[in-house]
């Protein structure tokens, strides 16, 4: 127990929590936007992979880091367009299309990686985003340095979450998005284009998921390797449910989740870690996500038209 308290009192722990939460926040916001508009996007896992790869390869080719972020976002939006085209106007199964997009985006990343670097066993590193201490805030004694000495992409993640919340709840666009996710027929009779709004949501949402993937290569690990996304996309889908489809709660969920993740890594180094198998610690994020889904099941406020295709003229 003293080990746990020591960990919780260390500033590096809290810095790690913020860092681990950042990619999850990007991707969770992306998924949340899609689902609020009524589209489940199971392409998330693969779109994070293509984001991680595109961001990394762009920077590896000599482009600036922010170009990498932009390229990742572009690649994500492209796969989002594919997903949106098949699920929105054509109304195909969102499960099947989503998994297909995940497979396509993942294998495209791996194919391109092997094409560009055929013989490499350990992937080349890039110089990632450096940490930026926010003047003033980072001087606050205690947690100041931990919370406010992060890479720019981390700050961007929190800004994106804030902007998502403002757009969803404080703008006509957000109202329209929520309307097509709750009651598309009513939205259409108000003159809104369900197709355009849903497609736009999926495309923008997919762009954010890809930035979440790019965080892994451009801000965390400095290189791209296979299986690096490792289920984070699926966890983000659980986080959307955990956050009851609300940006603020979803961010809290991501932070809570990141805290457990940072804790399990550190617990492995303590006497507890010497007794329990390390696989149990690695399984914690997935078990916690399932637990979160169970806890939230009764209270979940699912967008009423989630996974329901809308076809004009059909009632």
């Amino acid at each position, binding site marked *: 127990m003293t080990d746990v308290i020591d960990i919780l009192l260390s500033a590096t722990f809290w810095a790690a929590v913020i860092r681990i939460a950042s990619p999850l926040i990007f991707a969770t916001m992306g998924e949340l936007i899609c689902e609020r508009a009524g589209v*489940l996007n*199971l392409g998330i896992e693969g779109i994070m992979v293509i984001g991680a790869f595109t961001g990394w390869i762009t920077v590896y080719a000599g482009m600036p880091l922010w170009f990498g972020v932009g390229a990742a976002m572009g690649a994500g939006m492209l796969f989002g367009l*594919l997903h949106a085209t*098949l699920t929105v*106007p*054509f*109304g*195909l*199964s969102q*499960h*099947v*299309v989503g*998994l*297909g*997009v995940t*497979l*396509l985006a*993942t*294998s*495209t990343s*791996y*194919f391109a990686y*092997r*094409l560009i670097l*055929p013989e490499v066993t350990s992937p080349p590193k890039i110089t990632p985003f450096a940490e930026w201490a926010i003047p003033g805030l980072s001087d606050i004694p205690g947690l100041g340095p931990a919370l406010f000495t992060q890479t720019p992409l981390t700050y961007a993640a929190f800004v994106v979450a804030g902007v998502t919340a403002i757009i969803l709840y404080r703008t006509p666009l957000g109202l329209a998005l929520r309307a097509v996710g709750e009651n598309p027929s009513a939205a259409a009779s108000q003159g809104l284009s369900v*197709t355009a709004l849903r497609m736009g949501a999926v495309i923008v949402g997919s762009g954010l998921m890809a930035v979440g993937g790019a965080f892994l290569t451009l801000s965390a690990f400095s290189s791209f390797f296979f299986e690096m996304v*490792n*289920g984070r996309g*699926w*966890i983000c*889908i*659980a986080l959307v*449910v955990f956050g009851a489809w609300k940006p603020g709660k979803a961010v809290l969920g991501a932070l809570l989740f990141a805290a457990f993740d940072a804790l399990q890594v550190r617990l492995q180094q303590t006497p507890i870690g010497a007794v329990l*198998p390390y*696989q*149990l610690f*690695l*399984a914690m994020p*997935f*078990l916690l*996500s*399932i637990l979160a*889904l*169970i806890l939230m*099941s*009764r209270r*979940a406020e699912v967008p009423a038209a989630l996974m329901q295709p809308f*076809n*004009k*003229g059909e009632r």
Partner: protein
Amino acid sequence: MRLEPIAAPTLARRLGFPAAALALTILVASLLALTAGANPFATLGLILEGAAGSRFAALETLNRATPLIFTGLAISVAFRAKLWNIGAEAQLYAGAIVTVLLGTGLVPWPLVLPVTALVAMLAGALVLLGPVLLKTRLGVDEVVTTLLLNFVMLLFVSYLLEGPMKDPGGMGWPKSSPLLPEARLPRIVEGLRLHWGFLLALLAAVAVWVIQTRTTLGYEIRAVGQNPRAARFAGVPVNAVLVKTALLSGGLAALAGFSEVAGLKGHLSLDLSPGFGYTGIIVAMLAMLNPLAVIPSALFVAGVFVGSDSMSRAAGVPTYIADILLATALLFMVLAILLTRVRVVRG
């Protein structure tokens, strides 16, 4: 644009769109070969040759198709009821674990094979039962829970292979002890590298077809999949049907693990399945969820994988071309199948 159902689609429409999907997939393959600096025709030829060009190649494809028939059936059964079981990978490993547990001395000959197969199915069924009960009791979405359980199961297998089930004679590799010879599925013909698992898979396909077309359960599964509310209204016990579907689906997926361990590998390791559980989704969708069509569909998918592996060694096009091809085939095909039934109208 708007979709308008077609009452009686013409034969040209029903064949034309799927054919176009196939043609587009081949076009994508050719473009990928070009980007890799290879001749598209030669690449496609090498894939075909590697998949079916020799006796060795064809047997390899049949072997690879075996687990895919099982997982394809598992998915088609579940998807028919709109039960989104994305956890066939975990169920496969549950079957594999049981096969090693019972096949290393616990159950004597001649009981070992039938008992192992049955207990393996039970284990796979139980792995899916959890998410399904969470769905029927608490409304927890089964897509996410089954997906997440795949990761948990792989870590569990990793723990078993480094701990309680580790092969003492394995030179430190994380693999299980080998099965006893009597716990192995024999080869169909002596000298040919193809085991009874393949015939078992064909049998399973026929059995699932019989269940779906000739039994009440099959009717109920379809009713639940088409419209759960209407089914409930018509007196179908929806939740009970979902549980039964899950048991069947999980059991079928587990047979893939049983057949791979008892028929092919002879032991359990972490690379037992290169994603057979996920690929089963493609197999099932290409078969339009028809259990008998799962067989040719699995052969096609297996052929793409085996052929691409062998082409990759010869032509230097990365082997991931297989996954891209299958993903595009899947997406084009679901669109094509839709377009056989509906017309796109403006406005």
